[in-house]
C-alpha cells in the first residue's frame, strides 16, 4: 500500500509517517523497514533536523539509506516497508544538483517512484506544501515549485491513501476502498 503524506513545515508529518509505516510493518516484520533520507546534511540547520529525525527513529528498527538523487527502487530489498522523506528535498536535489535548474527532473522522479513502489510492500512518502503563500519567486524557484507540484500530483495519483497533516492532526483526503494501510 502507498500513502502520500503532505502538510506544511513543522506540522508533524514525520511523526505521523513513522507511526503509519511501523503499524504496517507489524504484519510484515520479517522484511526490512527502510528509511530513505533525501535531505543532504548541508549546514547546521540541516544537521540539527537530521539529528532530530534520527532520534525519533531510533529504536524503531529502521535501516537508514541516504539517497539524495536517483531513487530507483534499489534502495530497498523487494517486499520491504519504506518511508521516503521527502519529495521536497528530492526534487530540489534532482533539479539543482547539476548546476542549472533541470526542468525535466519531474519525469525522472516519477519513474523512480514507480520503481520504488513496485518493490515495496508498503511505502509512505512525505512531501511538503509550499504553494499557498502568494509570494513572487524567481524563475528557478517557480520551476522548482512546478516540478514539485507535478511530482506531488503524480504521487497522489499512485497512492492508495493521501493524508494532509495539520498541527499533527491527520486529515484523510484520499482513501482507496481496499486500502489496508
Amino acid at each position, binding site marked *: 500500500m502507498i500513502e502520500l503524506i*503532505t502538510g506544511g513545515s513543522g506540522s508533524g508529518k514525520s511523526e505521523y509517517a513513522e507511526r503509519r509505516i511501523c503499524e504496517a510493518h507489524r504484519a510484515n516484520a520479517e522484511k526490512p523497514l527502510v528509511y530513505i533520507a533525501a535531505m543532504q546534511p548541508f549546514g547546521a540547520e540541516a544537521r540539527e533536523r537530521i539529528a532530530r529525525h534520527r532520534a525519533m527513529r531510533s529504536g524503531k528498527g529502521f535501516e537508514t539509506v541516504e539517497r539524495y538523487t536517483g531513487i530507483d527502487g534499489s534502495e530497498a530489498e523487494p517486499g520491504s516497508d519504506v518511508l521516503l522523506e521527502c519529495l521536497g528535498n528530492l526534487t530540489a536535489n534532482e533539479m539543482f544538483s547539476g548546476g542549472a535548474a533541470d526542468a525535466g527532473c519531474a519525469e525522472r522522479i516519477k519513474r523512480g517512484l514507480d520503481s520504488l513502489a513496485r518493490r515495496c510492500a508498503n511505502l509512505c512518502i512525505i512531501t511538503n506544501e*509550499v504553494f499557498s*503563500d*502568494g509570494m513572487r519567486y524567481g524563475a528557478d524557484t517557480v520551476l522548482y515549485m512546478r516540478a514539485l507540484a507535478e511530482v506531488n500530483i503524480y504521487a497522489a495519483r499512485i497512492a492508495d491513501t*493521501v493524508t494532509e497533516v495539520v498541527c499533527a492532526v491527520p486529515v484523510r*483526503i484520499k482513501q482507496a476502498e481496499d486500502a489496508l494501510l
Partner: protein
Amino acid sequence: MIFVTGGAFQGKRRFVTETLGISEERALFDAHEYVEAALSEGRDPEAELMRMICGGAVDAVTADEIGMGIVPQDADERRRREITGRIMCKIAERSDEVYRLVCGIPVKIKQG
C-alpha cells in the same frame, strides 16, 4: 457556480475542464490575477467579479490560495493579498460548491 481554490500548480484548471466538464468559455481561471490586474489599473475587482458571477456569466471560478505566507512588508502587496482574500470569501459564499485542491486531489469544503 463552483469555486475551486488551493495552492499554485495544484491542477485546478484541469479539474474544472476535465473532471467537472466545464468549458473554458464558461470558466474564469486565476481570479487572484484578475484582482491584481484590476487593482493595478485602479478598477474595482470585487464589483466586476461579482457582476460576472451573479450575472451567470461563468459556471466555475478558480483562484490560487495566496494568504498562507508571511505578511508582506510592502503596503501594496499587503493590500492586494488582503483584498484578494476577502473577495475569495465572497465568491465562496456565492458558490454552490467549493473545492480545495491538494496534490491534485479535490477536497470538497462546501456543499450547497
